[in-house]
C-alpha cells in the first residue's frame, strides 16, 4: 500500500502547475476561448518541447518519459485547476492509449509525433443514435480491395477542429449493436471524404459533427484487431474516465477554494457570509465530495491494468462518484457566490460548466451505475 508519488511524479506536477500558473491565467484562457482557433498550438509546442509532458505516459524506448496512468492523472488534475483547453485527453490519454495497447503498423511513428507535439487527435466514437453505448455503431468500414472504405457520421467529436488525426470506431461486421464486429481506425483528419461542421461547446472547447463519405483506408489504419475492437475501446475509455476524474478533481478543488475565499470576503448583514452555518455545512459537503472523488480517481487509475471486470467496475464506480460530485460542487459553488456566480465574467461559473460537461462525458451517472450493477450484482440479481 503506497499512495505516495515518486520524485519524478512530483516534479511533473510542479512543472505542469507552474505552466498553468504562469501561462494559463484566467485572462489568457478567456482569450483562447474567444479566439478564432479556440486553442493555442504554440502552447501545445511548449508542452511538447519545453515541458516535455506530452511523453509522460509513454515508455522511454518510444521516446517518452517512462510513466503511465498515474502521470496522466497528475497532468489532468493540474490542467483541471486551470481549465486547460488543449487536447491532452484526446491526444495523449485516448489516442496514446489506443496506440500503446492496440499497436498497429503506424503506432510507433504516431506516438513519436504525439510526444513531439506534431500530431493531435480527437476520438470519434459517439453517434447520434448511440448515446453511451460504445458498440452502437452505424458508421461502417467495408472491405475494399486491400483496404477499407469508411462511411458514417460521428457526433460531438471534441477537439476535432484542431486534430491532425481522428480515432474512429466503425462496424466492420455484425449488427448495429453487436459486441463483435467493431474495429478501430486511425484516419488523417484531412483525408478525402472527411467533412466537419465545427462549433464551440458550452464549456469553452470546440467539437465537430464529422461525416465520412467513402473515405479510403489501408489495412495499416487498423488499431488493435479487426472485428474485435470493443475490448480495446472499453479499456481506453476507462483510462479516459480515470483521467477525466483527475481533471474534475482539479476543477472542483479550485471551484471549492474560490467559494471559500468568496464567502470569507462577501459581507451581508454586517458579517462575512462564511459565518452562516448553513453555508459552512454546504462548503463542508463540497469538501467531502472532492475528497471522495480524489479517492475514487486514485482507485480507478491504479486498477486500470487489472482484469477487465475489475477495471470496468472501478472506472464505473469512480464515474458515478465524480458525476455526483461535479453536480453538487458545481451547483453549490454558484449558489454560495450568489448573483456573482451567475456572471460570465467570474471564473467560477466556467468551472461549473466544465464540471457539468464532465458529468455526461463517457457516460452519465445512470449509465455507469447500470454498468456497475451488471458487473457487481449481475449473477446475484
Amino acid at each position, binding site marked *: 500500500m503506497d499512495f505516495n508519488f515518486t520524485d519524478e511524479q512530483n516534479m511533473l506536477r510542479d512543472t505542469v502547475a507552474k505552466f498553468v500558473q504562469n501561462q494559463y491565467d484566467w485572462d489568457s484562457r478567456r482569450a483562447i476561448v474567444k479566439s*478564432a482557433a479556440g486553442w493555442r498550438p504554440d502552447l501545445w509546442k511548449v508542452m511538447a518541447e519545453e515541458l516535455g509532458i506530452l511523453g509522460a505516459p509513454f515508455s522511454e524506448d518510444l521516446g517518452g518519459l517512462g510513466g503511465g496512468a498515474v502521470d496522466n492523472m497528475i497532468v489532468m488534475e493540474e490542467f483541471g485547476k486551470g481549465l486547460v483547453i488543449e487536447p491532452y485527453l484526446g491526444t495523449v490519454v485516448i489516442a496514446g492509449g489506443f496506440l500503446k495497447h492496440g499497436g498497429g503498423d503506424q503506432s510507433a511513428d504516431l506516438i513519436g509525433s504525439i510526444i513531439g507535439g506534431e500530431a493531435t487527435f480527437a476520438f470519434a466514437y*459517439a453517434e*447520434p*443514435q*448511440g*448515446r*453511451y*453505448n460504445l458498440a*452502437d455503431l452505424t458508421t461502417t468500414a467495408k472491405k475494399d480491395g486491400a483496404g477499407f472504405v469508411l462511411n458514417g457520421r460521428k*457526433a*460531438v467529436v*471534441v477537439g476535432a477542429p484542431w486534430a491532425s488525426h481522428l480515432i474512429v470506431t466503425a462496424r466492420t461486421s455484425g449488427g448495429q*449493436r453487436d459486441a463483435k464486429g467493431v474495429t478501430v481506425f486511425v484516419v488523417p483528419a484531412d483525408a478525402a471524404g472527411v467533412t466537419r*461542421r*465545427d*462549433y*464551440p*461547446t*458550452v*464549456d469553452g472547447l470546440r*467539437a465537430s*459533427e464529422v461525416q465520412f463519405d467513402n473515405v479510403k483506408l489501408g489495412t495499416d489504419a487498423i488499431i488493435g484487431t479487426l472485428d474485435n475492437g470493443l475490448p480495446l475501446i472499453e479499456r481506453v475509455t476507462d483510462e479516459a474516465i480515470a483521467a477525466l476524474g483527475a481533471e474534475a478533481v482539479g476543477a472542483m478543488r479550485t471551484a471549492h477554494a474560490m467559494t471559500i475565499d468568496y464567502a470569507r470576503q462577501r*459581507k*451581508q*448583514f454586517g458579517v462575512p457570509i462564511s459565518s*452562516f452555518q*448553513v*453555508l459552512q455545512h454546504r462548503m463542508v459537503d463540497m469538501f467531502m465530495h472532492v475528497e471522495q472523488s480524489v479517492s475514487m480517481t486514485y482507485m480507478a487509475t491504479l486498477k486500470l491494468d487489472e482484469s477487465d471486470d475489475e477495471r470496468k467496475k472501478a472506472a464505473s464506480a469512480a464515474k458515478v462518484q465524480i458525476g455526483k460530485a461535479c*453536480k453538487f460542487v458545481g*451547483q453549490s459553488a*454558484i*449558489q454560495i457566490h*450568489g*448573483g456573482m*456566480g*451567475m*456572471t*460570465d*465574467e467570474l471564473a467560477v*461559473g466556467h468551472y*461549473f*460548466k466544465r464540471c*457539468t*460537461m464532465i458529468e*455526461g462525458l463517457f457516460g*452519465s451517472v*445512470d*449509465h455507469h*451505475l*447500470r454498468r456497475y450493477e451488471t458487473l457487481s450484482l449481475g449473477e446475484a440479481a
Partner: protein
Amino acid sequence: MNLEFSAEDNAFRTEVRTFIEQNYPESLRAVQDEGEEMGKEDFLAWHRILANKGWVAPAWPTEYGGPGWTSVQRYIWSEECARADTVPILPFGINMVGPVIYTFGTPEQKAKFLPKTLSGDIWWCQGYSEPGAGSDLANLKTKAERDGDFYVVNGQKTWTTMAQHADWGFFLVRTDPTAKIQEGISFLLIDMKSPGVTVRPIITLGGEHEVNEVWLENVRVPVENRIFQENKGWTCAKFLLAHERTGIAGVARSKRGIDRIKSMARTESEDGTPLIRDSFFKRKIAELEIDLTSLEYTELRTLASESAGKGPGPESSLLKIKGTEIQQRITELALEAAGHYGMPFFRGFPEDGANLPIGPDAAHRTAPTYFNMRKTSIYGGSNEIQRNIISKMVLGL
C-alpha cells in the same frame, strides 16, 4: 373539501383556452421554437394583445384595469398560458410596481403610470439590489439628496433585469442616512432617459444578456415621482416582495417542462430502448412529478385561503423554494436526456451567423438553460433567505 372546479370555472377555462388559441401570434411561436433570446417587441406583442382584451393584469382591481377574476380563475389562467406555452408577461410593471402604485400612489401618479403600464407603453425595471446589498437588501447605499423640488440620486444598482429596454425604473434609495437601516429608504420612479443614468450589460453563464448594472450619477428626479412618504419606502418594498412571491411556484410551467422531458425521453434511446422505458430515468420523472403535485396542492391550499380573504403570508416562501428547486430539476433532467447533444453551444457562433442547430431540436440549449436556471434559487430572496423567513415567521425560531 372538494378538488373539483366549479362549472363556472370550467366554462372560464374553455373561454380563455379558446382566446389563446385564436389570438396567440404565430410569429412569436417561431421565435420561441428557435430558442433564441427574445427582443423587446417579442415580449410586448402578446402583452399588447392581452392589454386590449383587458386580461394583462389578472390580479389588479377592476378600477385600475384588472379583469376582476377570482384567485381560482387566475390560477386557471396561468395554467392555460403554460399549457399553450405563451411568452410570460414581464413581472416588473404588472406584478411589481403596478400594485405598489395603485396601493400607495397619489391619484396623479396612478393616472400617469397605470394605463401605460397596462398597455405596455412603459417598460419597467427594478432598481433594488446593489453590489453590497443582495440578500441584505436594506443595506442599500444609493442616496437621494433633496434639492428643491428634486432629488439628486447617486449610486449603483445591479442585477437589473431587462434594464436595457426599460423606459422607467422603480428604485429604492436612501433619503435619510442617519436613520435606522430600514427607516431612511424611499421609493422613487426614475425615467431611464434621465441624464446621468447609464445601463451596462452583465453577461450570464448561458451567454444571455438579461441583467445589467445601472449607474446613477447626479440624476435629477422630481419629488412628485416618489411613491408614498419620504423614508417609508421599505413599506412599499416589503409589499412588493410579498407580491413578487405569489405565482413564483410556477406549477403550470413546470408541468409543461415535465411534458417536454417526457417527449425527449421518447425519442432519445440507448441500446434501442427509449429513455422513457429506462427504469432509472422513468423513476426520476415520476419523483419529479410527485414533487410537483405536492407543490401544486400546497399552492391550491394557499389560493383557497387567499380566496377566504387571507393575504399571502410567509408560507409563500415555501412555494418559492420548492417551485425553483423543481424548475432547476427539470433543466437537469432535460440536459441529462440530451446526452451528447447537451454539449454544443451555438449562440453567436460561428461569426458568419450560420447558427444552425446541431443535434435534435429538443437538445438545443439544454445546457445554457440549466446554467441559467441556477439563478432561480438566488434571486427574489435566495432560498437560504426564504428558509430563514419560514424559520422566523412561521416556526418562530
